[in-house]
């Protein structure tokens, strides 16, 4: 009991510290300042776009890992989860070396199409998706493994196409897993810092997301950093709590 309570205290006290030290008096002014709004909007947009990208690419990947006839599946699964444990800064460096203007792939994107991802909002989305996708893949793969394939087989024998089977049978049965993965993925993308600042840089309105704004505000104006942190904390808690109530009972 005591260790459990200590654990709870350990996790909660830093968050309480934010609340205690927050400059409540001039909070409204700071909250509705242009910079906070800009950073928050950019954060929400980028995290959502990154989540969409993760869904489009991650669900098929999870399907492949769970059901596909894949040689060396264990190794593939391990590689897919590498961004989970990789320091995000390392992820950012890797992205820069591959997708930068002089990168392995990036140089062709730049020479042929004039596209350069670093220092763009698209770069933020890529960095966030890189770090967040494993959360989605693992959740969806777990759900697929838990689902009973006999229903799909039954649907197939009744003449349903593979797409129809996926849409009407598989997807509904794994939906809680997909939603859980999507939420985790979105929350992780929202909090992403290291890969974003390394790969996408920091420019207000274009690449300065909330975590970057917090980090830089801390250099000169700790009170502003606390306000930004509170907003991020509030958004995260509200989303996690709301979705847990509605969708994730028993999953998260």
């Amino acid at each position, binding site marked *: 009991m005591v260790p459990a309570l200590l654990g709870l205290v350990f996790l909660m006290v830093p968050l309480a510290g934010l609340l205690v030290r927050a400059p409540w008096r001039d909070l409204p002014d700071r909250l509705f300042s242009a910079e906070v709004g800009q950073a928050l909007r950019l954060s929400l947009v980028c995290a959502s776009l990154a989540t969409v990208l993760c869904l489009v690419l991650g669900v098929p990947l999870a399907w492949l890992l769970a059901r596909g006839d894949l040689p060396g599946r264990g190794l593939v699964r391990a590689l897919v989860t590498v961004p989970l444990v990789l320091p995000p800064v390392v992820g950012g460096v890797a992205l*820069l*070396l591959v997708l*930068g*203007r*002089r990168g392995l792939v990036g140089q062709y994107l730049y020479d042929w199409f004039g596209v*350069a991802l*670093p*220092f763009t909002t698209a770069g933020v989305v890529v960095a966030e998706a890189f770090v967040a996708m494993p959360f989605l893949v693992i959740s969806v793969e777990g759900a697929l493994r838990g689902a009973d394939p006999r229903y799909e087989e039954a649907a197939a024998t009744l003449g349903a196409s593979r797409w129809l089977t996926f849409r009407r049978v598989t997807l509904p049965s794994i939906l809680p897993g997909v939603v859980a993965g999507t939420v985790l993925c979105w929350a992780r993308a929202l909090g992403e810092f290291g890969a974003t*600042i*390394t790969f*996408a*840089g*920091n*420019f207000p309105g274009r*690449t300065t997301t909330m975590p970057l704004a917090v*980090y*830089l*505000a801390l*250099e*000169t104006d700790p009170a502003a950093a606390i306000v930004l942190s509170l907003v991020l904390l509030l958004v995260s808690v509200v989303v996690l709590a709301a979705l847990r109530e509605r969708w994730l009972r028993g999953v998260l």
Partner: protein
Amino acid sequence: MRTVGRVLRCLAPAAVLITMLAGCAADDSGDSAGSGPEDGLVGTVNVFAAASLTETFTTLGERFEQAHPGVDVVFNFGGSSALAEQIRQGAPADVFASAAPRNMEQVQESGDVTAGPVTFVRNRLEIAVPTGNPGSISGLADFGRPEHRIALCAEQVPCGAAADKVFTAAGVTPQPDTREPDVKAVLTKVTLGEVDAALVYRTDVRAAGDTVTGIEFPESDGAINDYPIAPLAAAPNPAAAAAFVDYVISPQARSVFTTAGFDTP
């Protein structure tokens, strides 16, 4: 439960190893202390120094240790504002060397410095371009052209503030693509060729070697950064702290700084 046991068993050799290493370290200092330093200086001196001093202070620390066999110099390199905050929160530091007077002033105001700080080096900004200068950058005016990719330090950190000062004086409105959290991050973007130009300290250009070319510009006179150093009031080892500060401002140390690209006052 069984897994926990297994993990602990795996960690046990590591713990033994760490204990042994710690033991060795203790033995070492014991030996050197036992050999009797003639100057009477012993123990550890903890130096909190700006990240831009990493190379020069490491060299000076080794030389200082050779001159004073009883002393161990331990460095904590980091951003000046972060270091100042650590000191104000009571970190056990003997010496503080800051990249900006502002951070030293913060420490002075909180009463952590008694003896007045001394400016020991100055750093000036230089334009850094990737080798070969692919963007054909020739001067500060190029920073105002949107077609170039430009990296600058964020306004909140000293190198960014210095850059803004230079641009204001030169009447150039810079068009940066990114404002990085520290000068080394800016330099990385140049090293990798992701930007055509950046403003960094001259010492950073030197430290980057062949991958970066430096272009001097006359307006850099307008934003020269002073580096103050001071022994701290709560220094656990005040004698060694004073000796280290004296060494850093001594003529012997000067060549190390000038080689690295610092100006000396």
